[in-house]
């Protein structure tokens, strides 16, 4: 069996006296898609941020490609693509200039072909020369996804990747996840509800107040019925 790309053991995280993650145990393997489902404030984004290297666990461990997430080498960091609630794009650069900048710091080869390809796939080719400042939230999200993909990551951490996207954008995000898995990438994404991506097997976990558990659709349906009084 392949080595896990992501492994957390007894991971906890507290901000002050407020616990956000409570003993999270998770393993994510190459060519897999993991979806973390939960309400606002459940701890999904915090878990992704720790895996991205932004913050130490309070207790427990979080490793990415076998290294502690808060002390990853440049080679490991290069293998991670991340999308967060912030776009990580420069508003006063154009869409193309943003991708060129990230391609240059990641040492991407064949830069222009790569950028043309991602602008085309994201549906932003016609807006390549426009500054991001003038983009809608959905266009920013698409460009942010393209930014995360520019260096062919082996681990994709996507925090609510479908937010603000129109149907065409959702199609782009789903296609991106599917093609990433097919080339061996591990994908982790967060969502508020269980989602299906055609042709992709998704490992779903539910996060409730910082605790992670296997997501069971039947249980959720049962809860919904009881809430509706049926």
């Amino acid at each position: 069996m392949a080595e896990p790309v992501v492994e957390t053991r007894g991971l906890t995280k507290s901000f002050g006296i407020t616990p956000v993650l409570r003993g999270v145990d998770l393993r994510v393997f190459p060519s897999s898609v993991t979806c973390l489902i939960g309400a606002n404030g459940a701890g999904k984004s915090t878990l992704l941020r720790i895996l991205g290297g932004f913050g130490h666990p309070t207790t427990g461990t979080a490793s990415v490609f076998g290294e502690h997430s808060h002390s990853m080498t440049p080679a490991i960091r290069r293998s991670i693509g991340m999308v967060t609630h912030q776009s990580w794009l420069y508003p006063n650069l154009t869409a193309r200039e943003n991708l060129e900048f990230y391609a240059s710091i990641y040492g991407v080869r064949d830069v222009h072909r790569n950028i043309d390809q991602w602008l085309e796939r994201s549906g932003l080719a016609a807006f390549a020369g426009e500054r991001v400042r003038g983009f809608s939230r959905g266009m920013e999200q698409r460009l942010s996804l393209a930014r995360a993909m520019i260096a062919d990551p082996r681990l994709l951490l996507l925090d609510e990747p479908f937010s603000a996207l129109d149907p065409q954008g959702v199609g782009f995000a789903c296609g991106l996840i599917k093609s990433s898995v097919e080339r061996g990438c591990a994908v982790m994404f967060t969502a508020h509800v269980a989602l299906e991506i055609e042709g992709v097997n998704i490992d779903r976990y539910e996060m409730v107040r910082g605790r992670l558990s296997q997501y069971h659709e039947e249980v959720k349906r049962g809860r919904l019925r009881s809430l509706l009084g049926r």
Partner: protein
Amino acid sequence: MTNTSAALAVLRKDLRLEVRTGQSTIALFALSLLIMVVLVFALDPKPRERFDAGAGALWVALIFAGVLGATRALVAESESGCIRALALSPIDPAALYAAKLASALIFMAVAEAAAVGLIVLFFNLDVGPQLARVALPVVLGTLGFSALATLLAAISSRTRAGDLMLPLLAVPMFIPALIAGVKASGALLAGAGFSEVGKWIGILVAFDALFVTLGALLFEYVIGEE
């Protein structure tokens, strides 16, 4: 991809943003002009006092330009959380610090060039070897203040009152170098030799070495941790 080429890419991006928006350059030039006008009328220096007054005005301009320059060099990264993207990228944090330091230095140098021109004009100084000799303490002071302010700007850009925090932290810490810079500049403008200002230059060199090293070592923790 080497760290050098990645750092150059960051620097090119900063300069492109500055050329496009012109925010720092215009603000820095206006600030330099304001400082000179206020000081020359407030001090009204006698002919023999004009060297010390000119040196003092230059260093006041340097500090304000440094605060503004370092803030501008980091503000683009704070917008939309881009500093996180750089922290996750394969660039060595020390190389990233060097790139941001170079950006701040360039912004400061532009402001100082304007300030020097205005000082010559307002304080009636001769353009010649004496003015050229002030370049050494000014360059050392600029490097030291940029090194300190870039590190502190990265910290303060993550706080709510970031713009207020930077001068509150940076200016008191810069006081030893500021005293050394003003003393050395005043003496050199008045015609003293480098041997006479050696101890002040030594303080500036030590300050630069300390904060460039600290910045390169600590930048990783400043941008990485939440």
